[in-house]
């Protein structure tokens, strides 16, 4: 992350291209520096990588399993493949699982047209969901005066958790429960509007990739977000201004 380190310079191969990097860089960082596209969902520049969504899985020669590019550091001589029929199938399945597990109805969503999940489905060629839909019963928390949390559209990327903790310093959000039961909670599982730690800064809303965290008063397709917010803030902090 920090450019002022004494990290060793290494050489590795990504998609048959020889690239130079520092050994404190992740495969995703290096790929992006070299204009090699790897699909991501939970990753957001300016926040600690979580490896939550697994969309950035890559193949590394000599390793018998696929690894997330956002949390795997490069090593000297590493040979990485960012795309293959198997990886593409994994990524499409991940998108399908996200759609099947929640209640994502793009047509009536405030984030329609400005949604990273919707964009990824298009990018990865997901034209339909082969898996059965779970149709879970999930609540909507509209207790906050300015924002709404719609659990139906949450993909558990934990961007909100990270931006609240790492950038705002409030740590209002957490994830409670496991598997399909997992969901975002404010403070100790209180209605958002009653969470004492929340500063109402709205950073969580701006970084949310879907229509799970939104501003009140928006109609279908009206919610546009500023995903660059954490990057801008952390860069400013690094430069000490």
């Amino acid at each position, binding site marked *: 992350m920090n450019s002022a380190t004494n990290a060793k310079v290494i050489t590795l191969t990504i998609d048959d291209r020889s690239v130079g990097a520092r050994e404190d860089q992740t495969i995703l960082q290096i790929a992006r520096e070299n204009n090699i596209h790897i699909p991501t969902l939970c990753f957001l520049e300016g926040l600690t990588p979580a490896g939550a969504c697994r969309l950035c899985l890559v193949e590394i020669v000599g390793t018998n399993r696929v690894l997330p590019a956002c949390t795997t550091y490069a090593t000297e001589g590493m040979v990485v493949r960012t795309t293959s029929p198997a990886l593409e199938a994994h990524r499409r399945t991940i998108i399908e699982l996200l759609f099947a597990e929640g209640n994502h*109805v793009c*047509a*009536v969503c405030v984030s329609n047209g400005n949604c990273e999940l919707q964009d990824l489905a*298009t990018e990865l*060629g997901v*034209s339909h969901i082969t898996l059965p839909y779970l149709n*879970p019963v999930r609540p909507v928390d509209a207790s906050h005066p300015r924002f709404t949390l719609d659990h139906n559209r949450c993909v558990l990327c934990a961007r909100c958790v990270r931006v609240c903790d790492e950038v705002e310093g409030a740590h209002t959000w957490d994830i409670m429960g496991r598997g399909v039961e997992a969901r975002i909670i404010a403070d100790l599982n209180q209605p958002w509007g009653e969470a004492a730690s929340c500063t109402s800064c709205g950073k969580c809303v701006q970084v949310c990739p879907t229509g799970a965290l939104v501003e009140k008063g928006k109609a279908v397709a009206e919610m546009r977000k500023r995903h660059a917010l954490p990057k801008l803030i952390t860069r400013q902090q690094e430069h000490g201004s």
Partner: protein
Amino acid sequence: MSKIRFATVWLDGCSGCHMSFLDMDLILLDLAPKIDLVYSPLVDFKTFPDQVDVTLVEGAVSSTEDEEKIRHIRRHTKILIALGDCAVTSNVPGMRNIFSPDTIMQHVYGDTPPVQVIPPLLPKSVPVHHVIPIDVFIPGCPPSADTIVKALLAVLDGQPNPVPPRFG
């Protein structure tokens, strides 16, 4: 060259996809010499014919009537195209899936829901391909006329759908 026997059907949807189909405007004139419209809500044939080359289906499968219809249509169609988000994802009709059919009927009709006129609801409103196999998917709510034109012209030429999928 013989004309392509072409049909469109309307299951549980708002007819917006059919509106978008008509929105092709002048392109419909280019399409007309290539196809024979043998069944559609836009024309007055009462029964689905035996042999159809291409059928566009709008809407989710929500009732026993929808299910019987689409199974019949699948048996008599070579290429079946799911048109729009309701057919592809169950979309808005699928939003009732968190409730039981009984709860919905009672909510809408009160204590004595009609038993004869309304076809019984399936437990869940589902995408068409969850009931029968679909050959081509055109998501969108509705898909734009341009999207439908490009997909349809490709399919009529025996080519794969060139339009990237887009929900919503």
